[in-house]
């Protein structure tokens, strides 16, 4: 059965989430990871492995690193090499190079962040030590199934959460507030484009990240992905309420027990919608992007 992974929440929330039926955590590390509600320090990883049993634990290095950061990333990877974790997620291919150099022997999961869109690239990385992949969110459910079929690695997809649209290393919000001579008081702001009036949100930390203002609710697509033997799905709680997210985990885990019951799936979709404070959407799961002039306007 396909696994369900979620981000590691704040310490006080962990017992609540552990009441639910899911399979593992993606763990954000302070200074090295992005877009988590909660981070642990590098020194806390060891304690985490002692306190959480019977769940997969992936240390999630889902950022690109500047040259002056990469030695410190290497030191961290060496320090956790022998700890009892399931594996490492990476986005920066420099991390893969380090893991291969230190002969890392646990799971290496490519957190592909927009560019995991085909099976050939995945198979290439499989030959270089990668064992699992979290695909790009900008592909359709059909493409996900094709990649699962055509690749030799264990494949996963995000089915819930705000979707990251872009990352800039520039401090775009700070720069703007400096320009208008006002103080930036929050971490999160909204932008509305003047053409289509779509709303999106921006968060500035180490980078500036752009997110959809709708939450992906892909539970409807979970049964067909289970049928295609997808290895795992990822549910993201970033910027969402933990109590509601508890119900989201429950909805997805319940579906695994009766995924061929269409009426039940439809009800669960409503449960997910109701438990999401924001509007939901299917992202690109049912919509292809276009790139040739003749295809514009077809979708």
């Amino acid at each position, binding site marked *: 059965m396909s696994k369900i992974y979620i981000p590691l929440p704040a310490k006080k929330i962990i017992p609540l989430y552990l009441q639910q039926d899911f399979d593992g955590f993606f763990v954000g590390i302070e200074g090295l990871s992005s877009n988590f509600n909660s981070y642990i320090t590098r020194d806390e990883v060891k304690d985490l492995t002692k306190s959480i049993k019977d769940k997969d634990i992936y240390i999630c290095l889902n950022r690109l690193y500047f*040259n002056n950061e990469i030695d410190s990333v290497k030191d961290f990877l060496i320090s956790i090499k022998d700890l009892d974790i399931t594996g490492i997620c990476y986005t920066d291919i*420099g991390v893969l190079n380090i893991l291969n150099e230190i002969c890392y022997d646990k799971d290496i999961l490519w957190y592909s962040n927009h*560019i995991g869109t085909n099976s*050939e690239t995945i198979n290439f990385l499989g030959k270089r030590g990668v064992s699992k992949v979290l695909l790009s969110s900008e592909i359709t459910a059909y493409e996900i199934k094709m990649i699962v079929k055509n690749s030799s690695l264990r494949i996963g997809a995000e089915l819930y959460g705000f979707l990251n649209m872009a990352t800039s290393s520039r401090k775009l919000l*700070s720069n703007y507030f400096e320009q208008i001579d006002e103080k930036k008081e929050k971490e999160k*702001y909204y*932008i509305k484009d003047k053409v289509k009036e779509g709303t999106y949100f921006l968060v500035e930390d180490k980078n500036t990240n752009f997110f959809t203002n709708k939450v992906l609710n892909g539970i409807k697509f979970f049964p067909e992905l289970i049928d295609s033997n997808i290895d795992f799905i990822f549910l993201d709680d970033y910027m969402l309420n933990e109590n509601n997210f508890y119900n989201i985990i429950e909805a997805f885990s319940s579906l695994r027990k009766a995924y061929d019951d269409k009426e039940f799936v439809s009800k669960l979709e409503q449960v997910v919608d109701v438990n999401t404070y924001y509007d939901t959407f299917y992202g690109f799961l049912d919509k292809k992007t276009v*790139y040739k002039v003749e295809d514009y306007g077809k979708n």
Partner: protein
Amino acid sequence: MEKIELLAPAGDLERLKWACLYGADAVYLGGEKFSLRANATNFSIEEMEEGVKYAHDHKVKVYVTVNIVFHEEDFEGLVEYLKELEKIGIDAIIASDVFILDLLKDNNINLEFHLSTQCSCLNKEVVKFFKKEGVKRVVLARECSKEDIKNIIDETGIDTEVFVHGAMCMGYSGRCTLSNYLTNRDSNRGACAQICRWTFDLYDEKNKINKETDFSFAPKDLSLLNFIPDLIELGVKSLKIEGRMKSIYYVATLLSVYRRVIDSYYNGTYKYSKKDEIELYRCANRDTLPQYFDKFPGKDEQYYIGRQENTNQDFLGVVLEYDSKNKEIVFEQRNYFEVGDTINIFGPNKESFNLKIDYIKNKDGELVDAARHPQEILRIPCDKMVDKYDLMRVDFFKED
């Protein structure tokens, strides 16, 4: 000492030829498929073949971009295409999707692989990974500073290509899909709608924040003109100019300036020249800055008013031939000028010079008071011999 390469964009066959004439050591171009400028003119295989022959005759290398991020539906015809590229003798491909490395080996295709900037090569460990894979050259991320570039070269010894001039992405290259979400156009497959040139309203939870100044995140352009000696001394192999969709005037002007600066470094005559800056900045349609090279960009490295492009009417005409018998330049008009104006003429491997327009003749030999109509063939007197492909522009040195 191996001379640093000056690498120019070639949006089509015409621009390839201009780039070769104006001092490029290499050009990069896209084919009709698998390239990140899906809606540019791009090259058919036949045009590419002609372009390669022309470039090689001028001792200029040709790199072909195969730099989309592939989806399952995009593989068809790729192997055959790569074999065609090998057959016509291109010098390298610039690719970002890593599986192409195995595809080349598995199909015995002998093409040099340059890693595209779309791979966000920001650190030495990324470069080490690709060096082990046989990648000959990496195009470094535009976010790299001088110190980053130095350290990467020192630690890996790989050939590096660095952008020196042109537009910047707001986000990490390859990691921006705003176009996908806002317009459904796939940024990583060549259809980027340049959302970073749009303007937005900014809100906190409740209130609109922007009043007089819209929220925008459009970066100003990059220029490392004043850092060419640093880049050469760092050991960078290639200096890249962005802009496959730019005009021949833009490409010719940039190339002639950068060529002059590079050559002056090697022949020991380099010194900072305000004239070079004026020439470049007049030609650019946005403000240019060193961006990440000398400091981390802040508020002044971007615009707050969305798409900011200055129109440029400096380009006056293209020399078609020199009539030595009548001492007249035959040219094709691009922008208005009139009798009595002083214009500037420049061309490959020559000093530019000013010319006062004593008369203008149309194709019937009649005197006219001005060059008014785009692409009209006209004549002006000139005692100094000029060459086909020289360009005529406003005498902006005097204006500035």
